[in-house]
């Protein structure tokens, strides 16, 4: 592996923690490459030149998610993501966002079970501003009580919006809390409301000092840049930040589930809903690709088995969806359906169970396999149209699997999945004792909606 010529000069001028080592080049599709570097501080740098448009994406992925939290302190990773837009030792409150917007940036952040990511997309030429701002907040964030208290209110309102007053959000949260008893995946990334409201500035400060270190992060730059320029600028800006001793992750593997778990709640809705979660393989597991094909064959499009049965043939559901968790540890395969008026959650479950049993007894047809694979191929290309989409793919697979180009490698794995593979994973995972069920019933027992008459006062 030959080191790029420009590295010698960069290293000669590097700050204390900014010496750069070259870690190689990975193909990213047919036309692009990812060049990988690492600072002496442990910060990983992944750069993909893409000159198709005069824009660039700059992502920072931290290997810190809600899985690293403890009971009583749930939601801290997500709250902290909000706080990262506050003041630093050199930037006044609000200045971070003002300078990014001044650069024409499209920016946001997100937190999930395994990671937290910060994404910025800017026009070409604005890279120096982004590097200055991002490196600054990695090391010099200032946390003050009034801002922490205000942000706690914002997050509590986000939770009301996404969970308390949202049926899908409430069901998903309850499903994971029911399916997991030991592993940290049992609490929601946004956190329990009581925990959110109880956080202190000291909690947030300790979290920052523990996890926001260069050796716990990867920077991804995709777009209209040159590798040498990016490496030099990052070495200079981030090379002043030293590595930290990261806390030991203290997680407990989820034991095998040995019996179906079922919970029922009431909500202000007109019809029953059902959500079923089967413990399923981790993203890096050999079984993940066949489970992905299985999920597509079940509910991946209008021609999928459950879509046809639930929505068309039995006219039992108004909506049906499937989701296979892409996580570092085993997650859930979630099947959700909303009943039509006059149909019950039990009606939906019976139809779903019939199709799941069929998957365990008969292999998918050749046509079904072809369709599932073609849908996923189209989905992959669709997700990579923008520089931000490419950076997101690289960052996600780097954070979860340490394989930044895995999107394309896994596409090849998917194409190799056979009907036998799908039959095997259906038999391994889709068993009643391995599942949890959440049922929502309408608040009014007859499911009737209120009178439509206008009530003018």
């Amino acid at each position, binding site marked *: 592996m030959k080191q790029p010529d420009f590295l010698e000069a960069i290293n000669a001028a590097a700050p204390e923690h900014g010496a750069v080592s070259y870690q190689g080049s990975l193909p990213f599709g047919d036309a692009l490459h990812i060049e990988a570097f690492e600072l002496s501080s442990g910060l990983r740098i992944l750069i993909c030149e893409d000159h*198709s448009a005069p824009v660039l994406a700059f992502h920072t992925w931290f290997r810190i998610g809600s899985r690293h939290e403890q009971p009583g302190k749930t939601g801290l990773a997500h709250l902290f993501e909000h706080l990262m837009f506050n003041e630093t030792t050199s930037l006044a409150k609000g200045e971070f966002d*003002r300078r990014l917007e001044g650069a*024409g940036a499209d920016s946001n952040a997100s937190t999930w079970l395994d990671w937290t990511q910060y994404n910025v997309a800017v026009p070409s030429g604005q890279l120096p501003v982004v590097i200055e701002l991002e490196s600054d907040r990695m090391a010099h964030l200032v946390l003050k009580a009034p801002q922490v208290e205000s942000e706690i209110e914002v997050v509590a309102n986000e939770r009301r919006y996404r969970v308390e007053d949202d049926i899908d959000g409430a069901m998903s949260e309850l499903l994971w809390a029911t399916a997991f008893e030991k592993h940290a995946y049992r609490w929601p990334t946004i956190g329990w409301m009581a925990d959110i409201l109880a956080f202190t500035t000291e909690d947030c400060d300790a979290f920052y000092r523990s996890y926001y270190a260069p050796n716990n992060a990867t920077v991804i730059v995709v777009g209209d840049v040159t590798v040498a320029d990016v490496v030099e600028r990052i070495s200079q800006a981030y090379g002043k930040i030293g590595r930290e001793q990261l806390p030991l992750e203290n997680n407990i593997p989820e034991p095998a589930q040995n019996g179906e778990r079922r919970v029922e709640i009431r909500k202000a809705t007109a019809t029953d809903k059902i959500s079923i979660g089967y413990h399923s393989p981790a993203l890096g597991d050999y079984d993940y690709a066949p489970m992905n094909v299985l999920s597509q064959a079940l509910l991946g499009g209008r021609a999928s088995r459950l879509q046809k049965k639930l929505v*068309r043939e039995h006219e039992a559901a108004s909506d049906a969806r499937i989701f296979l968790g892409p996580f570092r540890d085993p997650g859930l395969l979630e099947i959700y359906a*909303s009943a039509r008026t006059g149909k019950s959650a039990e009606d939906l479950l019976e139809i779903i169970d019939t199709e799941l049993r069929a998957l365990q007894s008969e292999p998918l047809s050749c046509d079904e396999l072809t369709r599932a694979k*073609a849908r996923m191929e189209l989905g992959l290309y669709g997700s990579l149209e923008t520089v931000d989409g490419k950076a997101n793919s690289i960052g996600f697979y780097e954070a979860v699997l340490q394989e930044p180009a895995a999107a394309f490698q896994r596409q090849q794995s998917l194409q190799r999945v056979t009907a036998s593979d799908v039959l095997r994973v259906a038999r391994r995972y889709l068993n009643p004792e391995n599942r949890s069920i959440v049922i929502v019933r309408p608040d009014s027992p007859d499911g009737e909606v*209120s009178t439509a008459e206008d009530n003018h006062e």
Partner: protein
Amino acid sequence: MSDSVIVETSRALPIVSFSVSQASGATEDPRGKAGLARILGRLMRRTAGGRGVEELDTQIDTLGGTLGVGVSGSVFAVHGAVLTRSIEPFIALVEEMLAQPGLDENELERLKRETLADIIETRDSDSDTAQLLFRQHLYGDHAYARTATGTSNTVTSITAADVQQQHAARAQRDGFLFAFSGDIDASEAQNVATRLRASLGAGTGVSDTTPAPRFQSGRRLMIVDKPDRTQTQILIGGSGTHAQDPDHLALCVANTAFGGTFTARLSQEVRAKRGWSYGAYSSLSYDRQRRAFSMWTFPKTEDAGACLKLQLDMLKSFHDNGITLEELDAAKQYLQRSNAFSIDTPAKRADLQLDSKLYDLPPGYHDDFVERIGDISLEQANAAVRARIPCDNLAILVLGTKAALGQTIDDAIEGLSSRSVVPHDQELVD
């Protein structure tokens, strides 16, 4: 290249995206038949070439494609994407969908039942429910108040004859605009468009006859009562802008400073300073007629009255005093630089060209956007705000649990002129 064909080529990925669009949508549904254009589009998709829906769904997935219909108030569009290797059979399918749909009566009845279930399903979402009812509250009996999905009554009333007539009226070759992007060049795109046009009958399709809306006077409150809410949805709006207004872009710049970004006044006051709402935005949009200016927040029940009052006070200050030079410069710089993300993919570039034609935008609306934004002065921006932003004539909607809100909402609105309370599952009218 025909004027009706738009193409943006990029060989970066092996996919082709396309849309076949008509500049008239659900506002042209006959009275009492709201939802007809959407039902037609979906039925065309399900009965292309007189074939069955399962056969079609299977073929589309096998080809590695997506094919859908989008119907808004002002546009009827067939759109999709496909792996390049499947473009030929996919276009044959689109041709069958446009020109030879079976419009099977049993499938129509099934589709109507699905649509009725969708209408009930939508009521589970507070924000969707609030938006639908706000549109009616804001636009009254104007066509912009109507929903493309239709209402339970109007969908039920749609007949096979209605659908056939609607297809005959829309499937006319000069009524469509064709846009392609991705792994396709100008010559290939022109050939596809020529082929699709040749399959259609003569004529210019359905014209948009929607008149300019008239916004009602006074501060009118609608409370949408939904049980067990921990927070509210607050929507405030009134007369907005028209792309042909001489002060249209000046108003857009001013709105960007008021509520268009995270650092804008509204977000700073409501979210950053007080933590009252996860989001706080104001927006302006364009159409073929004047559209509304509106604000959206979603504070918890206990903060709803104070949040609403703050928003109304901020709106008055915005109207009376306008924005500052510093705010103007920041908004202009943001709009100019972020424009790069309106044109960074071939699909977005094609969409902008298509928008210009579909909405009769002034010449150079998108192409000269950056330069024209740069020319806007503080005087122009603030004159536009004074002339266009409504303060006294506002539709205000609050979705929440009425009993928990008590009198707080009424008390927050100075000069309240009318008030109504409706249940959250209120049937829309057409």
